[in-house]
């Protein structure tokens, strides 16, 4: 009996919570919560500052991916129409989001900052094909909000800053396809 009286303390707590503000966030079609900068969900391939497809087909992301969901078909070296300089190209790029574990390693190793993750809350699909990202879908995702992380930024965060070389990742980019081709 005494126990049932002591239970009133618990009743008081639950009554107090009746007047606390809601902690749940609204349903996606009624509004979104604020997503932090580093939020990461789906993927996008981006164009570089000249308007070329940034991916150089170096297959780094394919090699690092722990769940082996990325397939890159390199397209060989050719001159860029925009800049006129030779660089590597990517012929096909697929990413199977069904098995993705969102570890961000592919972003980190990308020497050309070509692949980024999205800062979008929901990326569901109605079938497995919807979550199989082809190259077109990945480039279409470029319009969505990108996450903060890119290869250069992640590497820059992890390594002590080297003041004289702020443009280091871009400078390294042309070298990468050669490495990819030899390995």
């Amino acid at each position, binding site marked *: 009996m005494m126990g049932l009286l002591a239970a009133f303390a618990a009743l008081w707590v*639950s*009554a107090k919570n009746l007047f606390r503000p809601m902690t749940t966030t609204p349903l996606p079609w009624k509004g979104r919560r604020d997503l932090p900068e580093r939020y990461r969900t789906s993927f996008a391939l981006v164009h570089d500052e000249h308007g070329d497809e940034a991916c150089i087909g170096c297959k780094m992301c394919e090699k690092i991916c722990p769940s082996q969901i990325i397939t890159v078909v390199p397209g060989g070296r050719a001159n860029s129409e925009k800049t006129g300089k030779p660089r590597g190209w990517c012929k096909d790029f697929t990413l199977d989001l069904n098995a993705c574990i969102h570890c961000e390693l592919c972003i980190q190793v990308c020497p050309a900052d070509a692949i980024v993750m999205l800062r979008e809350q929901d990326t569901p699909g109605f079938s497995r094909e919807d979550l199989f990202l082809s190259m077109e879908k990945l480039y279409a995702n470029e319009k969505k909000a990108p996450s903060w992380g890119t290869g250069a930024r992640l590497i820059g965060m992890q390594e002590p800053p080297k003041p004289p070389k702020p443009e280091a990742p871009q400078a390294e980019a042309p070298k990468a396809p050669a490495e990819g081709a030899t390995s």
Partner: protein
Amino acid sequence: MILGNPWVHGGVVGFVVVNFLMVTFAWSVWFERKFAGRMQNRPGPTEVGPFGLLQPIADLLKLLQKQDIVPDGADRALFNLAPPIGAILILASAAALPFGPGLVAADLDVGVLFALSITSLMVIPVWMAGWASNNKYALLGAMRAAAQAVSFEVPLLLSAMVPIVLAGSFSIADIVAAQSGYAWFALWPPGPGLVAFVLFFLTSLAEANRIPFDIPEAESELVAGVTTEYTGMKFGLFYLAEYVHTLVASLLATVLFLGGWEGPFVDGPHWMIAKALGLYAFIFWVRWTLLRYRADQFMALCWKVLVPTSLATLVAAALWKHLS
């Protein structure tokens, strides 16, 4: 006049009462979900209708569409019979409940006994369901339910005897009449009445399998107790029986201890319903706050605390009646 005919009167009032109970059940589920949601800092149902008010209808439609599964090896007849019997019994128990002067489907001389005995028959469909399901969890749940019903009948009836002794009648109308002038049995005589009210309330919680006494259902131990194998509307009927049982218990507590339809301004069914719904909401509050007792602790509570206390209360009430 045609309403003077007891059959017609009973039919009309019964129709109204049954509909009242069903509608209250449906929207009490909505209320409970909203209430629990607020208690847990979340909005509860919001999508179906304004404030999710049409949620009960959506739930009903969903339940009606569900596949009706009878498990292999189940006793088909008993399995299918159990949910409607439960619903019928619990709705029948409301027949003797008056909502106002004359507003009763069947004004029985032994109304209290009728309502209590019909609600205690609820163990039969529960046991039927548990046995017929061919499921060990359901069987364990049914065994617990039977043990619980058998032991909690005693303090329930003993505490219900207190207003009967004080009013000197088994008729609910007489009991309510005896409380007129705000001499509610929960307040007057001081002591036995209040204790009997608390006991009646607790044991009704146990009878209706509500937390902290919901050990027959005990979803963390017995998956869903007797309703483990039920799907669709059959499950819905069990659900209905459970909620209406709680509601009937609140109504009974109102007429027995809280003066029935008596209240400020105008006496009438609205006071009866308001008091009952207040108790009902309190049950939700308790349900969403407390944890569950273990079966044996709960039996110990019943036989070692509740039964002696209710006996003592009954004796005290009888003495009071005898002396005054």
